[in-house]
Each structure stands twice: as structure tokens, then as C-alpha cells.
């Protein structure tokens, strides 16, 4: 609902400022209400209890003026760049009792419904960002205009464990139809893809689209035309019941296939949408209040807000040295020209805007890497995601060579060669004879020891780990690894580079697998262990559904590549011991190159395990004394994850559980409603049971015990 959340703070009260405007052509007086928190554009307007109270008072006064015939219309707009960014999440997540939560919904409805019961036509001029409760202000009005430069219109509530509960769930399907409403309320939030102004206009969320330079003037002129009746806005009829019900049923099926009941919010939203066709406004708004109250008092919602805050604040990395220590990076070297290396070359050229030299052993490999860069840039240019000039600039800045001495001019060299320690050490040793004494050496290793990699160098302090995730362009996380001798300068440079690459950097210690791979591969290891012990692969594949991960374990295996998964699992087992299981079955699968999943049943629905691979594991058949049911597999995985997180915190892999959660959210796509993972382990009792303590303090990412 909001983009603004911090640790609890006083509400930034949004004021409702009203001025009268004379409409042209004798259409009468327009009362123009501006939502404005009196702060600049870095502090988006949000709606908390104080702001809602002011809005209610202002709209009540306008209703009286309308009744007296003093005004012909009411319009609501926002301060520059914002209509409103939604409810004040900090306030929402601070609610202590269900009654309080219920009141939050009711007070919003009480304010907003005045917009639909004004006695004169009401208009929203969506001049900028309109999210959640901000967009619902507009939805409750009779008419809406939107500025071409409004960056985002969205109802992101479901993604935050809520529902659009200030009228959105009722009004959207009636306004744009049930099918598009599903997109607005369910699909877009989970894809984190808000509507642009033009799209919002096209699907009917807005009635008129006006250009930015004189948006307000155009909106007021349009208002006069509507009030005078010279412009008439046609509203669509309600979708017929069979259509409505079919869309709801189809969506419910899709939801079950993806969410598997792991979180309540989308289901509550779907129930509201299902009822919106026949419910009266009073009934619908009351149902929204109840849904909001239940969800606000849910751990899933609290964990979502915690996760949202982590992600929003992750851009200021914890544990990074003084950014002033960072060295300027004016020329980047990339060792290797494989897929990872080529992706890195493109990213560095694109975001840092510096010359990038990519080097591999033979001309063919180099050409292969350059071809990847070229075809990717061409694709970006032809699809309009990159300008032709930028494309040309990026291509001209990436240079390929087989001559390692060309790295002599680089001040930052990152290696992306095969994950073999000896090979990487050899590369670094060779480089040290070529590069300048201040050049930073980075490694993109995913599981090898950075400290060992640097051990034999004359200047090990310059070596730092920079672990990117595949696909590099899309994945927002970088694990920045501090090895034993890494200097503050090298580390600060790595953080600065990550920032310039627009990645979220998390500082991690040089421990095997760092954060994401250690937990992700452990999870996969526990799954195959269960299967080796006789658990059905289908049971194992379904077992983690209560977590609501983006895909099942075997689909994940398929995504990372079983060979890579096995390699990391083996390497972690060597370093960390048999908490990381061995699996002969997996080795055989990899050796034979067998695919582990069936084709995905439909777009957007994750693939499930191919039952045939059962033959590779254990006895080759499901069953036997070691076989687990779904609950058993889940328990084994959660115990293992909790144990491992305990070790990781003891080892100081990261500063605290928050960084583990941030890594799992951004590096593995683990869901907001689990808060990453540690809030889930706390609320399910695993951290108490396994570690004898909570991971996060009570109330940070859950409903505090004393009020639940």
C-alpha cells in the first residue's frame, strides 16, 4: 500500500487543502482538494489515521456545501508527483488489536465513500503516483483523469499481505470488468508491475488521459464539460454472472496451482472480487473491513511489511565500510568469456559506462562471449528497451582479447572462470604480474573460499568476492564477500561497484556458499535425502508448498541445472560436513543428463517433478521405513534450515537474520509473507525448538504475542 516505511515514527499527516475554482462556461464552482503532506517529493504522501480524519472532515464539509448548492463538483488531486502512495504502512503494521485493525478499514471507508455520495459529481485528477489507498481515493470518485507522466497506478496490497480494502476490491471489477480486475488486484501485485498511465486509461481505470504540462488545466476543462453534459462517460455494464463466476473459478484454480494456500491475502481478495457483482456497497465495504482486520492481524502481513522494508532499505547495505574508501573504477577486466563472464561484461559496460575487456584463452571462446553481448544488445535495441545510440556505446565499450596483458590498464578485474580453486588461483597469480598494485581483484565464485583464492598472492588484501546471481541482468542481489585479508578499500570498492550496477549488496563473510547457495542447496539436499530414504518424489516435491516458494524443489533443480546443484552440494558437504547430504541418485541423474521435471502445464504454473526419476534414488521405489510424508519432509527441511541459520549467525556470515532474509528474498525469490525465512521459522516455532531462541524479536515481523 505504501512505498514509505521505516521503524515506527509519528504519522506524516497528509492534509486536505481545499480551494474553489470557477469552471468555464458557467458550469459552476469546483471545490479542488489537494492531498499534501507539506513535504517535498522525497516524502510521498501517505494516508494514516490523522490524514484520513482530515480528509473526512474536508469531504463532510464539501458534502454540506454541495447540499446547499454552493458547488457543482468536487475534485481530488495531489502534490506534485503523487496523488498518494497509499496507506501509511508503518501505521498499519503497528496496529495492536483486531478492533483497531477493523477501525482502520472502517475509517478509510467512511472517508472515501463520501466521494461517491457527495451529491455533486466527484473527480480524481491522478497527477502522479497512485498506489493502494491512493488509487482507491480515485476509484471512489465518479470520474478520473490521469496525467501521461503518472509513473505508476497500482493496488499492490495483495503482495503485502493485504487486500485493497478501501473500496478497491468492490469498485475495480465493476469499473473495468472482472477479468481485468484480476490483473489489477492479483496478477500485477505478484509480478510487482504497476500500470503506467496510458495502460490504466486503456483498461478503464481512468476516463481521460491528459498530457503532463497542463494536466490540471485540461482536467478542470474536462470537468466543466462533464458537469455541463457536453462530455458523457459511458460506463460498462456489469459482466454477466456466468462470465464473472467463470473468471473467479479460473483464477482460483490458478491461485491453487501457484500459491497452494500458503498465504491468505490473495484468497481473501478473490472472495471479495467474487462477491462484488451482487453485493451492495455497504455489504462489500463491510466485507473489505473484515478482510482487512483479519489480514492486518496476520503474521503473513507483518512479515510482508518487514520484507518490504528490508528490500526498500537494502540499498543502504549494512556492514559496508565508509563509501569514501572506494577506489574509482575506470576500466574493468573480465577473466573468461563464458555465459557468466559475458553477462557481467554487458552489465558493467551498461551501468558503469567504462571500457570493459573480456579475455579468454582462445579466439573462439572470446568471439562467443562477444556474440552474446552483441545479440543481447541488439535484442534490447530492437525491442525498444535500449536506444540505438546507447546500444552502440555499450558495444563499442566491450572489447575481447586472448592477451592477458591487456588487463594491465584495468583498475578492477573480476574473474568468472570455471569453479575450480586451483584454476582460479592460477588466474589470480598470473594477473598479479600484469595489473597495477592498486587494482582490485574480484571473484564471482559461488562457493569457493575467497581467502584461499587470495592466499598465495603478494597483495591478498585486494581480493574481494562479488557473487552475482543468474540471470545477472534480472537478479537484484550481489553477495559481497570479505575474505580474511580483504582491505576496507577493496570492500568499499566492491560495494560502490554493486551500487553503480544497481544491485542490492549484502556483505557476507567468506564462508562456504555464503548465504543464498548455502540455504538453497541445503534445502535441495534435504529433499533428495528424503527421496533417497524412500520418500516419493511427488510427496517431496509438494512438501514445501506451505512455504509458498516460487517453485517446487525439483523445478528449482531444473532451473539451476542439476549439475551445478550437485557441484555446490558436494562442495558444501566437503566444507561444512554431512549436514549437506550426499545423493548417489542425484549423481546418476547428472551423469545421465536426465531431466527432473515434466513440462510445465501452463505458462506461469511451475513444473512438477517427473515421477520417473524415483528410479534413480534409494531402492528405486517409494516406500519403506525411511519414507516421509509431506509434513515429515517439510519438518526435516525446516529443522535443517533453522540449524544452518543458527550456524551461519554463530559464524558471523552476516550481521544478523535480516541480511539472511534480504538475501533469500532477492537472491532466491523467497516470499514476502515468509519475511524471507526467519520470520517464518520464528512463527512456526522452529527457531525456539531447534535453537532455543527466536531469530527476530517478537513483533518485528509478526503480530506480537501479547496482543495476538
Amino acid at each position, binding site marked *: 500500500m505504501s512505498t514509505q516505511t521505516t521503524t515506527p515514527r509519528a504519522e506524516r499527516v497528509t492534509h486536505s*487543502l*481545499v*480551494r474553489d*475554482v*470557477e469552471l*468555464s462556461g458557467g458550469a459552476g464552482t469546483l471545490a*479542488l*482538494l*489537494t492531498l*499534501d503532506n*507539506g513535504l517535498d517529493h522525497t516524502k510521498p504522501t501517505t494516508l494514516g489515521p490523522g490524514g484520513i480524519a482530515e480528509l473526512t472532515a474536508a469531504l463532510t464539509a464539501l458534502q454540506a456545501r454541495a447540499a446547499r448548492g454552493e458547488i457543482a463538483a468536487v475534485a481530488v*488531486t495531489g*502534490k*506534485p508527483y503523487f496523488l498518494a502512495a497509499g496507506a501509511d504502512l508503518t501505521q498499519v503494521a503497528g496496529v495492536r488489536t483486531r478492533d483497531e485493525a477493523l477501525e482502520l478499514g472502517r475509517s478509510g471507508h467512511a472517508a472515501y465513500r463520501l466521494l461517491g455520495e457527495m451529491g455533486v459529481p466527484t473527480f480524481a485528477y491522478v497527477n502522479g503516483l497512485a498506489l493502494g489507498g491512493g488509487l482507491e481515493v480515485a476509484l471512489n470518485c465518479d470520474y478520473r483523469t490521469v496525467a501521461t507522466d503518472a509513473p505508476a497506478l497500482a493496488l499492490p496490497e495483495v503482495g503485502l499481505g493485504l487486500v485493497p480494502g478501501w473500496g478497491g476490491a468492490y469498485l475495480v471489477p465493476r469499473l473495468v470488468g472482472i477479468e481485468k480486475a484480476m490483473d489489477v488486484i492479483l496478477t500485477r501485485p505478484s509480478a510487482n508491475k504497476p500500470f503506467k498511465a496510458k495502460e490504466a486509461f486503456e483498461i478503464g481505470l481512468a476516463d481521460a488521459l491528459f*498530457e503532463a*504540462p*497542463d*494536466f*490540471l*488545466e485540461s482536467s*478542470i*476543462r474536462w470537468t466543466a464539460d462533464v458537469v455541463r453534459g457536453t462530455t458523457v462517460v459511458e460506463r460498462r455494464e456489469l459482466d454477466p454472472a456466468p462470465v464473472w463466476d467463470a473468471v473467479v473459478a479460473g483464477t482460483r484454480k490458478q491461485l491453487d496451482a501457484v500459491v497452494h494456500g500458503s498465504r491468505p491475502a490473495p484468497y481473501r481478495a478473490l472472495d471479495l472480487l467474487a462477491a462484488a457483482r451482487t453485493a451492495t456497497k455497504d455489504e462489500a465495504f463491510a466485507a473489505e473491513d473484515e478482510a482487512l482486520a483479519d489480514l492486518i492481524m496476520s503474521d503473513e502481513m507483518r512479515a510482508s511489511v518487514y520484507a518490504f522494508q528490508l528490500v526498500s532499505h537494502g540499498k543502504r547495505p549494512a556492514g559496508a565500510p565508509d563509501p569514501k574508501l572506494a577506489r574509482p573504477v575506470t576500466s574493468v577486466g573480465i577473466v573468461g568469456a563464458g555465459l557468466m563472464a559475458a553477462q557481467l561484461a554487458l552489465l558493467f559496460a551498461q551501468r558503469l559506462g567504462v571500457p570493459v575487456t573480456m579475455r579468454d584463452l582462445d579466439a573462439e571462446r572470446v568471439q562467443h562471449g562477444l556474440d552474446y553481448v552483441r545479440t543481447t544488445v541488439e535484442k534490447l535495441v530492437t525491442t525498444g528497451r535500449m536506444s540505438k545510440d546507447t546500444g552502440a556505446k555499450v558495444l563499442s565499450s566491450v572489447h575481447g582479447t586472448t592477451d592477458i596483458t591487456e588487463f594491465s590498464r584495468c583498475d578492477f578485474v573480476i574473474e568468472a572462470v570455471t569453479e575450480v580453486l586451483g584454476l582460479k588461483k592460477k588466474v589470480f597469480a598470473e594477473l598479479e604480474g600484469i595489473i597495477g598494485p592498486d587494482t582490485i581483484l574480484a571473484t564471482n565464485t559461488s562457493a569457493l573460499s575467497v581467502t584461499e583464492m587470495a592466499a598465495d598472492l603478494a597483495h591478498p588484501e585486494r581480493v574481494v568476492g562479488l557473487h552475482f546471481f543468474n540471470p545477472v541482468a534480472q537478479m537484484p542481489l550481489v553477495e559481497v564477500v570479505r575474505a580474511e585479508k580483504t582491505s576496507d578499500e577493496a570492500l568499499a570498492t566492491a560495494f560502490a561497484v554493486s551500487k553503480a550496477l544497481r544491485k542490492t549488496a549484502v556483505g557476507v563473510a567468506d564462508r562456504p556458499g555464503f548465504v543464498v547457495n548455502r540455504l538453497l542447496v541445503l534445502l535441495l539436499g534435504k529433499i533428495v535425502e528424503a527421496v533417497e530414504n524412500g520418500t516419493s518424489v511427488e510427496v517431496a516435491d509438494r512438501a514445501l508448498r506451505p512455504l509458498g516458494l516460487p517453485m517446487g524443489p525439483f523445478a528449482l533443480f531444473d532451473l539451476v541445472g542439476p549439475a551445478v546443484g550437485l557441484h555446490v552440494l558436494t562442495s558444501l558437504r566437503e566444507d561444512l560436513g554431512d549436514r549437506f547430504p550426499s545423493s548417489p541418485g542425484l549423481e546418476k541423474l547428472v551423469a545421465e543428463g536426465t531431466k527432473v521435471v515434466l513440462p510445465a502445464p501452463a505458462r506461469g504454473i511451475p513444473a512438477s517433478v517427473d515421477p520417473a526419476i524415483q528410479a534413480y534414488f534409494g531402492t528405486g521405489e517409494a516406500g519403506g521405513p525411511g519414507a516421509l510424508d509431506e509434513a515429515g519432509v517439510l519438518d526435516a527441511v525446516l529443522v535443517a534450515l533453522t540449524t544452518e541459520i543458527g550456524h551461519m549467525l554463530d559464524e558471523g556470515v552476516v550481521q544478523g537474520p535480516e541480511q539472511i532474509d534480504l538475501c533469500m528474498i532477492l537472491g532466491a525469490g523467497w516470499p514476502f509473507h515468509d519475511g524471507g525465512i526467519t520470520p517464518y521459522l520464528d512463527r512456526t516455532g522452529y527457531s525456539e525448538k531447534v535453537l532455543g531462541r527466536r531469530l527476530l524479536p517478537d513483533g518485528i515481523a509478526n503480530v506480537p504475542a501479547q496482543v495476538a
Partner: protein
Amino acid sequence: MTVASKGSGSRRTVRDVVFVEGVRTPFGKARPDGIYAHTRADDLAVKAVRELLRRRPELPTDRIDEVALAATTQTGDQGLTLGRSVAVLAGLPKSVPGFAIDRMCAGAMTAVTTTASAIAIGAQDVTLAGGLEHMGHHPMGEGADPNPRFVAEKLVDSTALVMGATAENLHDRFPHLTKERADAYGVASQAKYAKALANGDVTPDLVPIALRDPQQGWGLATADELPRPGTTVEDIAHLKTPFRPGGKVTAGNASPLTDGAAVSLLAAGDVAAELGLPARMRLVSFAYVGVDPEVMGIGPIPSTEKALAQASLSIEDIGLFEINEAFAVQVLAFLDHFGMPDDDERVNQYGGAIAVGHPLAASGVRLMTQLARQFEQHPEVRYGLTTMCVGLGMGGTVVWENPHHADYSGHTTTDGEN
């Protein structure tokens, strides 16, 4: 006549230039509590340009060959090559060029005559010309660093750079132009403006401007802020004389400090015909003349004489006058010179800058926009003129012909001959 474009190096022939449309923002009080206190100067011009184009949908925007915008102070929100930056901000095609121009109070007038000249020789077909001045953001003379030689070598009188002082100098030079006559003129200006407003002669040329005030929220400016309807001679008889103790120039007989913008659309006669754009005035002649800076207010006299001479017209041929009222005494000097009465009904029928305000470089196009409307109301008038005095001792005059007049000479069309 059409632009001679056939054959390389062929000579061009002069084309007619017509005034198609003019709009202005409501004029605001240039003070911290004025309507535009929180509005950018360039945004005023952007909105005027967009309104102009909205009113002329038949004009393809890529046919605009130039955007010339004037401001007296070209820094801050009036900086960055106004014509070009406003063109970009207004969403005109990137192919449309623009420039900034300055002749103090005659900025917009000079934008018009300069681009009109380019149209006349066939270098351009359609131009936007206007000016803006946010005197609240840019007090007169802001940032100026007058060359010390002005005073050291007595190139100009020390009063020459203070416009109010030059108005006092005019009273000195013409003692019969008394404070009482100036006050009466100022009161009449207010009355004429009020009447024009009531008659619906003012509002149609205004561009509504959205106003944001952090304390009050958004509003909309739809009317001039400065006029004081109902002002009487008694009301202003004892106002302060800020430019000279015991002087004659007061807020009652001078234009107030103002924020505003005005923009016009000009076209070659034949191009207007081709695009179906109305010709509301035809440019006949124009002239700028310098005078002693310390009596800059007499500038319109020689510039008018020169412009009339060019057109082989005499003052008797002019049926409507739009003269900028920087100061009442400066208008009186003009009328006195040409033997016209103080209340000549051909002059400033909608009142003038004393009532509505004078956002320096914008005013020239306000005069033209108003004259164009008066031409429609007075088809019996064939010629009119717009004139203004200019700081540092200049006058500017543009003579216009009324297309609504029976004997209208016509403007060039695509057919060529006229």
C-alpha cells in the same frame, strides 16, 4: 506572392505576415502573496503555448519554424534559451527551434517583428512569438551590472535606469501634463478595464493556469489579479510618490509590478490560407527608435512617426491604438504630441497596463491580442497600431491592418497575386 523557392539562388519576394492568434496568462501580482509566487516563469509560457495550439488544432505543430520568447531577465526560471526550452517543455516536436530575445519592455513586440521579418523574406512560414516576465522571481534589473561609464561619462542621466524616475522627468519636460491629468488617466484605465471585463472582452484571451501553493493546495488562475475596479480620483490623489519626494508618479498612475506571459501565432499570409488559419491582423510596418534614456517615455512618438511614414499613413488613418501604459504621463505625452484628447476613445479601449499590469517583456503581445479583438469589433477601422516605450530610451510601434475592413488590401495567398 509566394516564397520563391524555385531554382538555386533565386531571389525571394516579400510575403505578408498575419497575426493568427494571441493568448496570455492572467496577470498576477509580483509579490510573495501573488497568485504566481509558487509558479515557474517558464511554465507560464509553456501553458500559453499549449493553449495557443489547442485553439488552433488545424496547425500541424511540425509546421512551426521558430519559437521566439522574450524576457528582460534571462536567468533562473527565465534562463536557458527560453524559446527553445519552452518549445521542448510544451511538447513541440524536437525539430522546432527557438531562441530567447530581449528588448526590455518591448521583448514580445520584438519577438513578433523579428520572426515576422523572417516570415516576410520567406525564411519561415509559421512562428510563435511572445514574452514572459515573472517580476516576483526577477525584480527589475536583477543581476544587472551597469557599466560605470554610463555615469562616469554622463552617457545617460543617473535617473535613466529607474523607470519611475524617467516618468517624473517627463512631467518636468511637459509641465502641462499634470499629476491630475495622469491620475484621471489612471482612473479611466481601471474603468475601461472593468467595462471590458464585464463585456467579455478580456477573459477569452486568457489561459487558465494551475497554481500550486504548498499551504493552500492547487488552484486555478482564471482572472487578472491586479485591477482595482471602482478606483476614483480621490482614492489615488494622495498616494505616495516613491520616485521623488513631492513627485507626481504614484501607484495610481503607473503600472504595477506583474507576473505573466503572452504568446502569439504568426504566419505567412499564404501559409495561413493553406492551413485554414484565420488572419486577424496583417502586419503593415514596424519601427523602433531610440530617445534620451532619461525620458524613455516619449519613445513611442518617434517610433510611431517612423512606422507610419514607412506605410505612407498618417496618424489620422489609425482608428485604434493599443499603447502600453507603463506610466500615465507617457501615454499623455504621446496623445499630446499627436493632438489627441486624454480620453480619446480610440485608445486602449480595454484599459491598459495601469489596470491589468505590465509583465515587462510579455506586454507587447497583450497589446496585439487586444487590438486583434478590437479589429473584429470595429470593421469600420482599417488600421490600428500597438506601441510602447522601452527602458534605456526607446520606442517601438507596429502598424496593423484590419482584415474585417471592407477595403482590406488582402494578404498573400497560395494563389500568389493579390
